């Protein structure tokens, strides 16, 4: 990655001719609308970027058991131009986040970093033009061959149990989770305890119960009692996405694979989604 500094060249004056060499150009008046959501999935170094006319999907995976996807629809961007059906590349996420926050990431009102993200195609770096207060920084980040993200084959028709909760009720539970427990057990059932998070730590057990008629429970659709355990180390990173979100949907399919979908409102009130897929811990059986 290399940085060039220049002054007095706002991003909008770049010539049209330069744009034609890029297969992807995405612009945001406020880079935080991208950086905040990427921070929520930054539990690993590398991220796979996948762009279509619908927008941008960023994927981060861990040990073949956990996958996080952040979706930023094309409508969120002030400009989103794509010249191919699918544009994919992989970058070091931590470097990208450092660049997006290059002006210090201050949250002074009315001051934001503008971003123009450009990609020429396979073999080229990802170019970021960042501007704040008239100062422009150009960052070129090396890209890598994108790995194929895992397809968990999770589909709605196989979902056994689903709930949608207001994030507020889960935030406290997640911040209090006993980290000495190796697993987080999720119980979903049409009968008591309905929706339960359990930990089994060194000093004892804890259960967090959310009844189906709680006013925090926006949707409750459980057909069969399921108890599954997931490695705590895999689920703990989801706390970041939970913190940004206002609602979360929890779905478990007939194989015990967990899907968490977080509805995140960005600085401008627009909705983006972050989703996590997690495989159950192998030691247990699905009841």
């Amino acid at each position: 990655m290399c940085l060039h500094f220049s002054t007095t060249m706002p991003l909008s004056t770049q010539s049209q001719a330069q744009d034609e060499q890029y297969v992807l150009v995405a612009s945001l008046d406020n880079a935080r609308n991208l950086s905040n959501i990427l921070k929520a999935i930054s539990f690993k170094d590398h991220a796979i970027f996948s762009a279509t006319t619908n927008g941008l999907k960023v994927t981060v995976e861990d040990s073949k058991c956990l996958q996080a996807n952040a979706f930023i629809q094309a409508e969120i961007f002030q400009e989103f131009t794509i010249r191919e059906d699918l544009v994919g590349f992989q970058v070091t996420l931590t470097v990208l986040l450092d660049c997006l926050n290059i002006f210090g990431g201050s949250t002074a009102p009315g001051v934001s970093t503008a971003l123009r993200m450009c990609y020429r195609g396979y073999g080229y770096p990802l170019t970021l033009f960042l501007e704040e207060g008239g100062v422009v920084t150009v960052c070129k980040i090396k890209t890598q061959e994108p790995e194929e993200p895992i397809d968990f084959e999770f589909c709605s028709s196989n979902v056994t149990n689903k709930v949608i909760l207001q994030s507020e009720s889960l935030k406290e539970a997640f911040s209090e989770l006993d980290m000495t427990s190796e697993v987080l057990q999720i119980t979903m059932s049409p009968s008591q305890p309905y929706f339960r998070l359990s930990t089994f730590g060194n000093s004892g057990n804890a259960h967090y119960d959310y009844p189906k008629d709680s006013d925090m429970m926006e949707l409750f659709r459980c057909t069969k009692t399921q108890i599954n355990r997931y490695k705590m180390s895999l689920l703990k990173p989801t706390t970041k996405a939970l913190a940004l979100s206002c609602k979360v949907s929890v779905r478990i399919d007939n194989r015990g694979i967990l899907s968490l979908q977080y509805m995140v409102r960005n600085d401008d009130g627009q909705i983006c989604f972050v989703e996590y897929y997690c495989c159950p811990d192998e030691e247990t059986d699905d009841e």
Partner: protein
Amino acid sequence: MNCVLEGNCVKAFGRAIHALSRIGEELWLDPMVGGPAASLLVLQLALRSVNAAHSAYACFLFSQLFFQHYSLGSASEQGNETVKCKLVIKSLLPLFRCLTSIERNVERCQISISTPSDRVTIQFFCRHGITKTHSFRFQESEALQAVFASHSCPNVLQAPASRLLSDTVMHFPVSQEEITLSVTPLRLSLRNHYERGNVHMKIINTEISLPPDEFDAFQVGVDSDITFCLKELRGLLSFAESHCLPVSVHFGAAGKPVCFSVDNLVLKATVVLATLIDSESGGPSQSPETPAPTTPRCAGAAAPPVGSYDAGNSKPQDFPAVTELIASSQGSPIINPPALGQPCAAISASTMICSLLFRALSSEQEDAADDLPVLASRSDTEEEED
């Protein structure tokens, strides 16, 4: 035992746990039957903690009135069958870590002890129908209770239900281990205490004096200087401040324990701290048989009561006033304090912390206690403090 606390009381209970965590690593949850008259069965719940060196003890006693519901369950009301459980404070503290969140969210808390499964269950019933259930294994263990006869203390002070003591100790840095409290009938002063041998030049000395009229009660029978561990006291002072309770202080001469207590209609909290006998010459000597403790230094020298204190010599020792070892620019001679580090057997009690004498709550142990030298005695029918 099964009890239910409502909203605000949960916060008070949490504060008690915070205060106890300043003392020791373990907590005894002790449902009991107690009261001044044997005929009046008053149910209480005691939370006790002791530090590793047995030089600090705290007890929070909640009466039945504190609870929305309190029962000893299927156990006999005589109390013989009640279980005494010992829990690790580190497991309990996270449940009560954020008191503001408890205030906002928790409507009710239920605590129950189950003997067959050796578990204590703490259940929080929160807003929006959410329930949090925590269960811990406990160890069945006789609780220790500090033996302290407050009625025989010559000095009794009561700080008003304001922030008097909290504001006073605020002037000492959080790292300050011990302070010395000196009283005469005319004034009370608090100053920091440092271990002899520390580089005096780099220490900021703080001394605060308070006149008797700052106190609701100021009875000084014996002029004394007592040095005790401040860190262990801070928990009780925060508790008193948050509940706007006056703090009573009972003590005697250096070497005898000091007792800080607060009470209102529904609860009584007590912290008993050992004091240095020689409060002026610096740190306590280390008993060679005692393993190096990990608790604060002020607890470091406590040796078992056996053989370390001559029961016949219950009067405070007189020591020459020892001046600080700072070479005077005037060339005055340096006075050397008495030597420290004497072996346990030959101890002259010159610079030793007297550990508090503990007696197990069950009366069967009294014969053992008779052979030990007693720091303070308790009569058969009274609780440890009146």
